[in-house]
């Protein structure tokens, strides 16, 4: 493939290299925080950004499932699929405190851990954490062993056992591979926000760059406390909750 003419990518790589040299003081040290905008086309995802969602469960309406429907529409999985084999990239979970009787309802999807157990156990490195913190399945490498499904403490990784047709062009999915929330990586790469966040009408979900001190999500995190689910596992999830 050495003869392949691809000046665009070569230029982009040179640009990236130049930028890295200019801003790096040493390994892991940077003079200024990287900007939060979408990357220029041709640049790889980098750890300068870390995408996350802050969910205020107190704002979730009683019977609202707009985020679930939006995800289903965006990625082409069916809500209420075959029992026991239903993929739920995102679902609403209700919990009640047995003492006070207070109940809370929250959307649950891949938590995009900093130390993802699913990626730990993957024998083929199909499950991986992208540099900007998004945990994905590289279906080209997935052998369908389902270790990740078992390893996930939040039960948000699924195995697709049925053949699918008419997939969304931006969201390939196929029989015999593991799948889960991609944080709408195709939208994020284009500078957008995930479909669930876009669909939320109550403002319960805030999406942004956790590394950017100017971002709305960092603003919100600075003003009020938020927790991670099963914080005792110290997985460092990018999805955080409030009002639980």
């Amino acid at each position, binding site marked *: *493939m050495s003869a*392949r003419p691809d000046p665009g*990518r070569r230029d982009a790589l040179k640009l990236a290299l130049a930028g890295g040299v200019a801003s790096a003081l040493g390994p892991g040290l940077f003079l200024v925080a990287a900007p939060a905008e979408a*990357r220029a*086309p*041709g*640049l*790889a*995802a980098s750890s300068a950004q870390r995408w996350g969602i802050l969910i205020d469960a107190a704002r979730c309406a009683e019977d609202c499932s707009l985020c679930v429907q939006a995800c289903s*529409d965006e990625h*082409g999985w*069916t809500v209420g699929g075959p029992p026991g084999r239903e993929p739920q990239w995102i679902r609403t979970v209700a919990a009640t405190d047995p003492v006070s009787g207070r109940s809370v309802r929250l959307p649950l999807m891949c938590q995009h851990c900093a130390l993802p157990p699913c990626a730990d156990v993957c024998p083929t490195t199909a499950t*991986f954490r*992208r*540099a*900007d913190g998004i945990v*994905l399945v*590289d*279906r*080209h490498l997935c052998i369908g062993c389902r270790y990740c499904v078992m390893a996930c403490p939040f039960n948000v990784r699924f195995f697709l056992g049925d*053949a699918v*047709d*008419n*997939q*969304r*062009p*931006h969201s*390939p*999915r*196929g*029989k*015999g*591979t593991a799948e889960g929330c991609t944080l709408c*990586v*195709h939208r994020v*790469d284009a500078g957008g926000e995930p479909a669930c966040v876009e669909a939320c009408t109550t403002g319960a979900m805030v999406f942004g760059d956790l590394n950017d001190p100017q971002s709305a999500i960092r603003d919100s995190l600075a003003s009020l406390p938020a927790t991670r689910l099963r914080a005792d596992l110290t997985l460092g999830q990018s999805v955080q909750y409030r009002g639980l």
Partner: protein
Amino acid sequence: MTQGVTSSGWLRRYGAPLAVGIAALVIAVLALRLANDARASLPSTEMAAARGPCLLPAEQMRRAHMDLLLHERRVAVREGIRNPQASLERCVTCHATHDAAGISLSANDPRHFCRACHDQVAVRVDCFSCHRATPAIAAADTETAR
């Protein structure tokens, strides 16, 4: 008589090489015919050409498309470098084949652009067990197609 002896002598002398030469010529012509037939049975790229230039000329694409796809899939999925010009989505959009009713053919149909060659050379690809094999349809149609 002298003429006959001379003639048979000529035949005896040049007959074998001549026969070999003629046979070689016939074989060459037949091989060329077959090669042309094979070329003629390759899927047409004319329709796709109407949608703009391909990444590389057709001759090179026939030999290199698998390497291009392998490269693109790695950088796109694992590094997030998306190149819409070299995406599989663009391949199936430009090279869409349709049935008589004008409906895009899926990869299950032997007339699908990719299948036309892959069937001939007995290469089975599983791109389309996960990827969409037809052009994206309008959002309104996805509900019925699902």
